[in-house]
């Protein structure tokens, strides 16, 4: 990459008032999730603020939610780089929700860095150039003799210097430069370096404030009893016993159930236990996982909507080829962030204030405005730190509940979901069913690949009117667009939507599809007796970035070295959310029990902007994927979720965490995401390693005990 110049557009505005230093506001275009795009007005409305106060403190307002992925760290890093700021002077503020001021505040789809990079860089460079001009004017010297370094402008010949704080007010009066030069990445001092997260001290001291920790005057603690059965409706209730529970102050009804409000959390929980409710369980009262499986198998015999058609698969299958067939299944899994859903809401006569850890606060702003009939300006949403998102908090059902309860009760409330509430009322990763057939020729190449996906669609469940001809291409992410060149391909889709609520789960549909495709490709490789890496590489001549990450992961894993008996290596790759990932898993299987020892991850996301948070994101993607692959399964019984807590739904523990090695391949191509891309290859790499170790193919998740 070389130095680039940028044109000034109408996205910057400089403001200054006496003693305030410099305030720069600029506009980042809406950074929508690829899968849940909501168009926003493109009119000028600044959405990021940079403030330099006279003491030199640089405050950056961040409009994306912070859930551990590091938005409060990498946004300021990008900006500080071009600004040549002293990192120790950087402070971060969280923006409240606003209809359009900040563009899209939706935090999902691994969009953070890639959609903000350019504008943050330009903003930093703009201010840097203005500070240089201000210093040059003050000293009455040629600005070319001045440069910026660590929060000061230095006059090269005389070595005299002024700090950003001293220059901010003068700089604010200058015109905004037309085309500030961006730095050559070779000269980066902050981007690409290992910087601790801004929130680490708060998170290591108990001082980090999540929504569940918020307390406002007059607030009552609330719990809500909902129908355990999906779609069940309230018939009648008796609150006598609940109301007489010590500490309980009120019992109110909202559309989704009965809320118990008390002066303490414990009293609200005890009061809820004492509620007597009669439910109409409706048509789903007998629904079971077996019914859903039967539905998928039946739908698999229907005609599918064609997503990818290349060549002629039928003709290819009729040729002199070896045909392999397989059926794969993936279950529903839960998000289960460590902080269960919670929200504080204070609905007053003509205004409302909310504290919530939401990945999509603007959606809550919209629904609250509709719900209360208030203009949006009367609704304030404070976005707190999030105790784990993984896609769950893109939905604001818990926020809407809190608003309704506060409105019904006429007091501020903190709604707490118990772990059981959280697991029973999740929007799960969809279960899916896959029917595949492939043909390999005598040269050991795939000549035909057929894949029928039978799965629910999130859009199909929530907005069926948006579905045309039975197709939702999002569901086929990484299935319809495989990385390989194969002459004859047919991928089609049969939409099957059981009445189980589904939502976005880290990497969304890619997590199931990559498991299936990469496992089946491995089956085809095994059928040809080819090395699984070589088998993939021969189909990747047109995909050099994927080739590179595969080669890197393989090399770093010692792919060609021998493993002790009982161990196996497996490889898998994927392209999603803008990044290429390839992973090698090393596993052993003892008496049916699978142990993952090591994961080698190679990733090409353009450039590693923030290596520390990048590595954490890979750790997190691997851990979440392993939890799901090894043991994650939500099952349905009598119309409700069977699992309610971590005893019945175990997740990965420290003794099960493999060694993880991360290798970033800097291609300097367009920036890609990092939160989601490392997740999909985990399950197939592990399953392929199990095959290498035992000869056993895992065609149904979770892996569980192989017996």
């Amino acid at each position, binding site marked *: 990459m070389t130095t680039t110049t940028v044109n000034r557009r109408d996205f910057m505005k400089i403001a200054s008032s006496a003693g305030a230093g410099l305030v720069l506001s600029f506009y980042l275009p809406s950074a929508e999730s690829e899968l849940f795009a909501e168009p926003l007005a493109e009119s000028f409305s600044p959405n990021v603020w940079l403030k330099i106060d006279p003491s030199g403190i640089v405050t950056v307002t961040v409009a994306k939610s912070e859930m*551990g992925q590091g938005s409060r760290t990498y946004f300021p890093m990008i900006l500080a780089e071009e600004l040549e700021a002293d990192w120790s002077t950087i402070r971060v503020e969280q923006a409240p929700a606003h209809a359009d001021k900040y563009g899209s505040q939706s935090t999902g789809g691994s969009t953070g860095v890639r959609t903000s990079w350019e504008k943050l860089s330009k903003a930093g460079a703009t201010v840097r150039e203005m500070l240089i001009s201000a210093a040059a004017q003050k000293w009455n010297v040629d600005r070319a003799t001045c440069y910026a370094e660590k929060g000061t402008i230095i006059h090269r010949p005389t070595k005299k210097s002024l700090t950003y704080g001293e220059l901010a007010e003068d700089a604010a009066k200058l015109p905004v430069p037309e085309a500030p030069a961006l730095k050559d990445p070779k000269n980066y001092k902050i981007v690409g370096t290992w910087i601790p997260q801004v929130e680490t001290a708060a998170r290591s001291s108990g001082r980090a404030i999540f929504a569940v920790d918020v307390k406002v005057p007059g607030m009552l603690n609330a719990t809500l009893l909902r129908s355990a059965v999906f779609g069940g409706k309230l018939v009648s209730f008796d609150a006598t016993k609940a109301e007489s529970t010590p500490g309980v102050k009120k019992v109110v009804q909202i559309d989704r159930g009965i809320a118990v409000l008390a002066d303490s959390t414990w009293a609200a929980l005890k009061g809820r236990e004492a509620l007597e409710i009669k439910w109409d369980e409706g048509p789903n009262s007998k629904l079971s996982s077996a019914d859903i499986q039967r539905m998928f198998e039946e739908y698999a015999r229907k005609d599918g909507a064609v997503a990818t058609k290349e060549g002629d698969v039928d003709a290819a299958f009729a040729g002199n080829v070896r045909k392999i067939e397989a059926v794969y299944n993936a279950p529903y899994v839960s998000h289960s962030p460590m*902080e269960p859903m919670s929200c504080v809401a204070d609905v007053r006569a003509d205004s409302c204030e909310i504290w919530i850890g939401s990945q999509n606060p603007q959606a809550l702003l919209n629904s609250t405005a509709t719900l209360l009939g208030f203009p949006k300006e009367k609704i304030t949403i404070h976005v707190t730190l999030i105790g784990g998102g993984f896609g769950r908090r893109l939905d604001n059902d818990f926020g809407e509940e809190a608003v309704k309860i506060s409105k019904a009760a006429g007091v501020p409330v903190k709604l707490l979901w118990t772990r059981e509430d959280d697991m029973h009322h999740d929007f799960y990763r969809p279960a899916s069913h896959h029917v595949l057939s492939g043909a390999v020729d005598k040269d050991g190449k795939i000549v035909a690949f057929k894949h029928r996906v039978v799965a629910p669609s999130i859009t199909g469940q929530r907005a069926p009117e948006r579905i045309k001809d039975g197709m939702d291409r999002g569901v086929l992410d990484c299935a319809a667009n495989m990385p390989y060149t194969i002459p004859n391909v047919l991928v089609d889709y049969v939409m099957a939507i059981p009445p189980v609520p589904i939502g976005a789960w880290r990497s969304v549909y890619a997590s199931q599809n990559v498991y299936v495709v990469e496992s089946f490709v491995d089956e085809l490789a095994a059928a040809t007796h080819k090395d699984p890496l070589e088998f993939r590489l021969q189909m990747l001549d047109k995909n050099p970035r994927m080739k590179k990450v595969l080669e890197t992961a393989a090399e770093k894993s010692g792919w060609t070295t021998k493993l002790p008996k009982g161990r196996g290596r497996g490889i898998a790759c994927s392209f999603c959310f803008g990044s290429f990932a390839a992973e090698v898993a090393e596993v052993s299987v003892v008496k049916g029990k699978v142990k993952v020892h090591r994961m080698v991850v190679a990733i090409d996301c353009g450039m590693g902007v923030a290596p520390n948070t990048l590595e954490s994101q890979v750790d997190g993607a691997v851990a979440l994927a392993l939890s799901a692959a090894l043991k994650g399964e939500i099952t349905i019984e009598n119309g409700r979720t069977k699992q309610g807590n971590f005893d019945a739904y175990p997740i990965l523990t420290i003794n099960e965490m493999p060694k*993880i090695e991360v290798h970033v391949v800097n291609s300097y191509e367009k920036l890609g995401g990092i939160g989601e891309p490392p997740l999909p290859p985990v399950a197939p790499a592990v399953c392929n390693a199990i095959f290498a170790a035992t000869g056993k193919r895992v065609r149904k998740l979770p892996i569980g005990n192989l017996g």
Partner: protein
Amino acid sequence: MALITLTVNGTNQSVDANPETPLLWVLRDILGLTGTKYGCGIGVCGSCTVHIDGEAQRSCATPIGSCDGKSVTTIEGLSSDLSHPVQKAWLEVDVPQCGYCQSGIIMSAAALLKQKQKPTDADIDTALSANLCRCGTYNRVRKAIHVAAAKGGAQ
């Protein structure tokens, strides 16, 4: 209701509560110590870990009635300025992601280091395997415990 007296972070407290109330909710709702987190309510996730008379315990499964006369230390009492060796190691390794489980993990780690000055990986597995983290900070947790041990973490 009953009057229970206990020491929390070195301060004597008298709490008027139903003795069945879990210590967790007394800490959070009555004493305003929100660093200790609710994660499961059945003592399996470790987010609510505190020290009771020096031992790591699950406050969500500890009735306040059983705490009479006991000494409780929460994350807020571990140090007021992140000076505890475990916290220092946490900053050095940059362990937390979302941070929600971290108070509990830090308290478990601090209790482990009090028992074993130089814990092995197996010791860490045993002591920490019931502290769940959904963000996957485990490898950094392990590393930070070793860092704290190397720097004399058994404070």
